[in-house]
């Protein structure tokens, strides 16, 4: 019965950030638009949405890294159980990712439109099209675009949230071990692999094959991202259910 209020509370956390994000993106586009009369053929200003999905992926990740503590404490103050908070979080996750996916597509369409008017300055490409080589600017393309973005955001956001809950549960020593230790471990493994071509010969093809298997087509990507989201969320619940107020 407190799921909806908790959902509203958790969603509220994200709204300002999302709004600012798109204001910044649109402002950059508008700024370029405003500068067009002053541009000479030599100026190489090109505003494109090629990378926007990637940037939004990073944004979604960062948003969820900040999402846990404040709303957890406030939810507890209002007598909301952890189970309810978790369910509400899933709703927030879905909603925010959907909004971002739509937002990105609208931004891409905006730039495509501007691109028709000022081809040298604007172009609307999408990450999806780039990866999956889908041709044409069609409504079908937009839908695929949105779906692709949505599921990538889901996976990335749930990972960010998992990490922030993990961080909350860890004590000081644990935090140092994890946040410093993980990059160090990755670095060590990477240098070991590059130093041992024989090992590299096994691992790299394996990894490449794995990524291909998981993400080579849109349906595969949807399934993989959904699986990742489920796993990350499951782990989040395990960490959250015994989280105490500090």
């Amino acid at each position, binding site marked *: *019965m*407190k799921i909806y*209020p908790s959902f*509203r*509370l958790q969603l509220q956390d994200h709204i300002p950030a999302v709004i600012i994000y798109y204001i910044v993106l649109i402002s950059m586009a508008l700024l370029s638009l405003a500068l067009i009369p002053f541009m000479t053929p030599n100026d190489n200003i090109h505003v494109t949405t090629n990378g926007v999905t990637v940037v939004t992926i990073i944004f979604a990740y960062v948003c969820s890294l900040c999402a846990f503590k*404040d709303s957890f*404490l*406030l939810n*507890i*103050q*209002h*007598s*909301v*159980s*952890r*189970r*309810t908070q978790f369910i509400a979080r899933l709703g927030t996750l879905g909603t925010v990712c959907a909004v971002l996916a739509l937002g990105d597509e609208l931004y891409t369409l905006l730039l495509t439109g501007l691109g028709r008017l000022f081809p040298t300055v604007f172009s609307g490409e999408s990450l999806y099209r780039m990866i999956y080589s889908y041709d044409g600017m069609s409504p079908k393309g937009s839908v695929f675009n949105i779906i692709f973005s949505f599921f990538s955001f889901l996976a990335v956001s749930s990972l960010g949230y998992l990490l922030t809950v993990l961080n909350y549960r860890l004590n000081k020593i644990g935090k140092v071990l994890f946040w410093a230790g993980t990059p160090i471990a990755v670095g060590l493994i990477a240098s070991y692999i590059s130093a041992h071509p024989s090992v590299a010969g096994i691992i790299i093809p394996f990894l490449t094959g794995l990524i291909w298997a998981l993400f080579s087509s849109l349906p595969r990507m949807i399934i993989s991202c959904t699986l990742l989201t489920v796993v990350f969320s499951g782990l989040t619940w395990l960490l959250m*259910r*015994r989280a*105490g*107020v500090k």
Partner: protein
Amino acid sequence: MSIELANITKSFGQVQALRGVSAVFHEERIYGLLGRNGAGKSTLLNILTGRIFPDSGTVTVDNERGTENDSAQSKIFLMSETTLHPDFMRVSKAFHWAGIFYPGFDEGYAKGLAQEFGLSLKAKISGLSTGYRSIFKLILALSVNVPYVLLDEPVLGLDANHRELFYKRLLEKYTAKPFTVVLSTHLIEEVANLIEDVIIIKEGEVLRQESRDELLSGGYTVSGGSAAVETYIQGKNVLGVDALGGLRTAYVLGVPERDSQSAKDLEFGPMDLQKLFIQLTNS
């Protein structure tokens, strides 16, 4: 209808904060949860409201499981020393959210109280002094209208005027429509007349749980010259003795024996709650 705690145990590392605590909070009564600093009162209240988990033991609210249960927990509101609201949140926003989570929250009443206490609705919670932070929280507690309201050191940092105002508003609410109040404090004297029932916690255990009247009628003070007092208290259940020069005051459990031979030249008086508490909780 009540909140029941059964055999609650909790340790923080090496320190055992609560050892097998059992207590009952009945409906519509004002309780004093009394204990010295570090006795375990706050830990108890935090476990009751699910903020932390006990090592063992159960919490039952109106015959329902109290842990991780929205409907049970929404009957309880805890105002504690730690502020769980985000720093940047304004008082008016906090009232707004309280209204969303608690259908019975009376925002008009809360705003009225804020004005009476001199709390600005626009203020950011992080910018409030200790006293005003307490005021903010106790306004929430008084406006939320749930059956069980728990107040952990509610008057921390409040000046005398505000303390008086708080007690009056609390009593007004209570007499208009009774609910359960648990006042957890070490300021015994102030709350002695407000509370109906007393739970004394000492070093993680419940020392006494009874009505205030029963507790006080179970003992008395006897004063006089040291020799006379010493004679009188032979064989009696004495909690403690105060000395001032050649005069003694003893705190005795039981019924005063005014007519006995040894009672000549001695003055008998009632025990007051603070004195009794001090005597009971001195190690």
